[in-house]
């Protein structure tokens, strides 16, 4: 049987079933979906979600896939925006057994897989951690030699400890020096915190990341202002722009 080309052809809207729902933080929830005829995906890709109300009103949003390709089910982690229209529904109303219309997987630029190699630099602002988590989880599932060939550094900027998505899992996956996880809090840190307490700046990047000679593959994800600040700092520090990939998240929820 011919394997369908994952990058060619139109994508169909499919009705997925919510098989699991997991609260990650007070504002973020993971939805695990069973998607009929899911072709598989690559870490970093996203899906489009379409909601149609009974009166015909339609809303559409994009959400990054949080799960690695190895997992059964497609996991999306959604953060609720208070004045959002779709995120309060996904985080507050949707439940196991419900249907959800999705289209995907989408993306060919902001993707990483083991074959691309490393070192792998992941820089996340807020909910920008989601697609980077898919990459980190993929890395964790790779075989020992592949993992050894790709050191990983994740720098994750969150407002407060309560906003850190996947906190326990990040602690488990951290395995210095092979897998380094560095957090910085921009609004409020734990009382006993000895780590960073500020927005990501040049000095922090210089301390955390590899020099340009290591030629890391860098992935930066989060709100637009965050992404552009970090990306330009990386280029300023000497990293080739072509090795810094960006994905900007919008504020519409």
């Amino acid at each position, binding site marked *: 049987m011919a394997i369908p080309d994952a990058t060619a052809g139109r994508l169909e809207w499919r009705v997925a079933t919510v098989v699991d729902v997991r609260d990650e933080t007070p504002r973020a929830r993971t939805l695990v979906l069973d998607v009929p005829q899911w072709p598989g995906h690559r870490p970093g890709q996203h899906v489009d979600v379409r909601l149609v109300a009974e009166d015909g009103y339609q809303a559409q949003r994009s959400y990054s896939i949080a799960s690695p390709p190895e997992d059964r089910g497609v996991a999306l982690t959604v953060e609720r925006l208070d004045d959002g229209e779709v995120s309060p529904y996904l985080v507050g109303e949707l439940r196991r057994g419900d249907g959800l219309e999705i289209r995907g997987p989408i993306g060919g630029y902001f993707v990483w897989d083991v074959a691309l190699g490393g070192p792998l630099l992941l820089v996340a602002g807020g909910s920008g951690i989601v697609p980077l988590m898919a990459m980190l989880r993929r890395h964790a599932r790779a075989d020992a030699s592949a993992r050894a060939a790709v050191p990983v550094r994740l720098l994750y900027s969150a407002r407060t400890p309560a906003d850190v998505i996947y906190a326990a899992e990040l602690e488990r996956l951290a395995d210095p020096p092979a897998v380094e996880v560095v957090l910085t809090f921009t609004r409020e840190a734990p009382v006993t915190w000895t780590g960073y307490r500020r927005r990501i700046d040049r000095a922090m990047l210089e301390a955390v990341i590899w020099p340009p000679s290591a030629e890391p593959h860098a992935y930066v994800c989060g709100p637009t202002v965050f992404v552009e600040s970090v990306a330009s700092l990386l280029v300023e520090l000497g990293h080739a722009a072509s090795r810094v990939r960006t994905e*900007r998240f919008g*504020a519409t929820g």
Partner: protein
Amino acid sequence: MRAEKIHLDGNAAGGVLRDVFAHEMTAALATCGGCGAVGPVGALLEYGQPMGIVLRCPTCDTAVLRIVRTPSLLRLDLSGLRLLTIPA
């Protein structure tokens, strides 16, 4: 205070582009018709939603790709695009 609505990037247009070109497009390389800069479609700056999609060159802001879908047609303006290279 509401944050100013900022642009996104070509990744956000990925679903629509896939529909239009029947191919994953964010990794395709676009040569800007304004300044000649070459970069992935995913790295173009996205404006115009929800009226349509306007993808602009991050170097010179030229509108490289413009897409509007109406109930009766889909229109694509490529006048700001010099070359598109789609990886095999």
